[in-house]
């Protein structure tokens, strides 16, 4: 019989530890908060007019100079009177969307490459791992910038570029796990039963090797959001007036006086807390699952 147990006793104990650790709990709390903001965005910051893309930041006028927080715009406005509160709320959605979409696709690509390399070994493994090496020999940010530019700029292009250059860690991790797992008795048994390679990989090996991959993937979301925002900040990502944290922060660049603190404070706070929440969880996960890091 094939063994299809996803979580063994040890893993369950570790998960329990994760949900009782104060650092991780703070991370989960922050993450829960951001999820709420993203989900309730239409209520927290109702779009000014029906029929317009809600991600377009409304303008409070056309003055060049940023305006401090007031009843009209509680976080103030940037240059060109973009409402900062609106941008921060809807930018949360953008951040989640970018993070999840990229992680979803990189995990699929990485798992396919890793599983094939680990399962078939030999020449397939050699070829796939060389390709992985090549992708890792490009500085990440530079590679993403180049591919985004060549594809023609825009947030969707940034997402494609991030996917293209962020699957390698997953592939390597899964390859190692599959290499180990394929020697197990239950895999040999499945082979003896004459199951196809695809069935053995999907039904037998992956359920037993996926868990670390998922953990590692979730830990990357924070970094991915930072890079995507960085590209928007440079003017390569989200189009003008699109609700994105990097974009709204870039509007503060021309106003570096202390009296314009609100143009950088609120969007930055959102960004840092968002990334922090993922890192707090990731840090605890590393403590629990990687015994070498104490």
């Amino acid at each position: 019989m094939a063994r299809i147990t996803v979580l063994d006793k040890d893993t369950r104990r570790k998960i329990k530890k994760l949900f009782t650790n104060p650092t991780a709990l703070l991370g989960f709390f922050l993450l829960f908060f951001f999820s709420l903001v993203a989900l309730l965005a239409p209520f927290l910051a109702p779009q000014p007019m029906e029929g317009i893309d809600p991600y377009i930041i409304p303008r409070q006028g056309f003055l060049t100079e940023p305006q401090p927080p007031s009843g009209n715009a509680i976080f103030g406005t940037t240059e060109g009177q973009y409402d900062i509160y609106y941008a921060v709320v809807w930018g949360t959605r953008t951040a989640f969307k970018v993070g999840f979409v990229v992680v979803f696709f990189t995990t699929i690509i990485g798992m396919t490459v890793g599983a094939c390399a680990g399962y078939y070994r030999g020449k397939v493994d050699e070829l796939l791992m060389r390709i992985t090496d090549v992708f890792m020999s490009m500085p990440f940010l530079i590679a993403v910038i180049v591919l985004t530019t060549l594809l023609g700029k825009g947030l969707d292009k940034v997402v494609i570029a991030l996917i293209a250059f962020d699957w390698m860690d997953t592939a390597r991790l899964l390859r190692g796990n599959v290499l180990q797992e394929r020697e197990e008795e239950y895999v040999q048994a499945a082979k003896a039963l004459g199951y196809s390679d695809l069935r053995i990989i999907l039904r037998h090996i992956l359920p037993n090797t996926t868990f670390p991959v998922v953990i590692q993937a979730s830990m990357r979301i924070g970094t991915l959001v930072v890079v995507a925002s960085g590209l928007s900040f440079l003017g390569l990502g989200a189009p003008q007036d699109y609700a994105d944290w990097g974009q709204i922060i870039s509007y503060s660049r021309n106003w570096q006086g202390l009296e314009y603190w609100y143009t950088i404070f609120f969007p930055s706070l959102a960004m840092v807390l968002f990334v922090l929440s993922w890192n707090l969880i990731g840090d605890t996960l590393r403590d629990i699952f990687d015994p070498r890091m104490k």
Partner: protein
Amino acid sequence: MIPVTLFGVTLLVFTMMQLLDPYQLLSAYVSSPAELKGENIERLIEKYNLDEPLPVKYFQWIYQAVRGDLGWSESASMPVSHAIRTKFPLTMELALYAFIPIIIGGVWIGKQTALRHNSFVDHSCRIFVIVGWSFPDFVFGLLVILIFYSGLGWFPPGLLSNWASQAVASPAYDHYTGLITVDALLNGRLDIFFDALRHLMGPVVTMTYLWSAFLIRITRSGMLDVLHKDYIRTARAKGLPERMVINKHASKNAMIAVLTVAGRLVIYLLTGTVIIETIFNRPGMGKFVAFAAQQLDYAGILGGTLFFALVLIVGNLIVDVLYAVYDPRIELS
């Protein structure tokens, strides 16, 4: 493995180039805008084999690149190879000044936290590390500008003050290395040296905070790892003074982990300054690539990418070699 990886990287960049049509690509081939003037575009496409099959195009491109001809950068108004020669020293200079405080501070703090495992110092340091790790570089950089330039007026962005840039541009001033501080010293201009240093402080403070977090973490876990080893207990049992145990026995082995990371750090500092250089308005390689991307200067970004990939590959090779030299247990394959 290095030649295979290098070949692979050129192939990857070349594949990405194929997203452009021949007209856009032409800029990555012509050696100056004068060549485009009055020329028949079709003839130029033929001249550079842009209508040929892919393998021919690839070898034509590689042949040019190996000879150092990376095309004309529209955004910098100079050949890409020349841009790399003048801009990379500025990136190196920044990396050099950021490296010292990151290594010294990171290793020292990391060691202290490991020796005071689970103490108040350790826990507050952990918070410092996670928070530092969570700051995007553009956010922290803007905060540094806000506080140290707008608020206190200490560290202005840019390379040099106006008077200093004029002095540097004058014919009497010699450019030996391209590193501003070094050139200032060689010219005997202490005032320019200190001015350049003042302009370096902003990005250096930013990079130090963001990256020392990383180093603290590695040193701490490396040190903790070693402190639990048997030979440390033996050393203590022999009655060696604690200072000797830490400095002679533990540190040396803990430093192996730090050394690899230090090598990686240099590579990161050289290749990861796109946003920092843009924010602090320093015309190094990072800003060059960012600006080229903004201006859709294809020759500039492709040449820059190729160069950065080369830095990364060569840098990794050097780290591996140093690693083997320092730790004889490791064999180079």
